[in-house]
């Protein structure tokens, strides 16, 4: 299935892209994150270990167990620093 990924702030800079369209078999956020971390390099650094980040699915905050469906918009970003 196709997922629409979006990256913000530090992650956008580190990944060198603001987003991508991904053909993925991930059934949950946790599976998607594992798939991305398996790319190694900055992906493993940012998503695989101690770094803190947030995930939103279809613009709603999500957790590791949040299920994914075809066409979902999945945003990954650092903790917010607004205002």
């Amino acid at each position, binding site marked *: 299935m196709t997922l629409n990924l979006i990256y913000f*702030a530090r992650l956008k800079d580190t990944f060198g892209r603001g987003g991508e369209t991904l053909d993925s078999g991930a059934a949950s956020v946790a599976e998607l*994150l594992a798939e991305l971390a398996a790319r190694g390099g900055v992906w493993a650094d940012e998503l695989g270990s101690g770094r803190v980040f947030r995930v939103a699915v279809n613009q709603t905050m999500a957790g590791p167990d949040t299920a994914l469906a075809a066409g979902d918009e999945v945003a990954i970003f650092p903790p917010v620093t607004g205002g």
Partner: protein
Amino acid sequence: MSNFTIRVGHAEFEPGAEIAALSGNPAAGAIASFVGLVRNYGDAAHVTALELEHYPGMTEAELARIVDEARQRWPLTAATIIHRVGYLPLGEQIVLVVVAAGHRRDAFAACEFLMDYLKTRAPFWKKEHYQDGSSRWVDAKDSDDDAAARWMAQ
């Protein structure tokens, strides 16, 4: 919810005009407001500008949700939230929250509540630009940790 306005964009705003716009309702005797500016210290010295990024669509939806929550907690007659994004030099205004209510305690409480939300939960990210031309994304503060409960942290 025509008395409750949310604007996210680069455009300048005028606090006096926004306060005046909420002053017309004769039931609202109390108007609390807050302006946040780019200041020259904090996480680092020699900041010359901030760059604000946000998550278009989600930001506005989240702000509408938090305004609804504020209206459930306090009897408000109107509120305006304006949050700027993009490159904002030192001294520029970043954020404005104006809340009108019948009583001052409600106006103050809701205004501070909305600002706390904007600082800790709304999807905005700040990058600091320095005098030497370098820049750095601002890390979330420890005081933001309470927000983490409803977000995912690995």
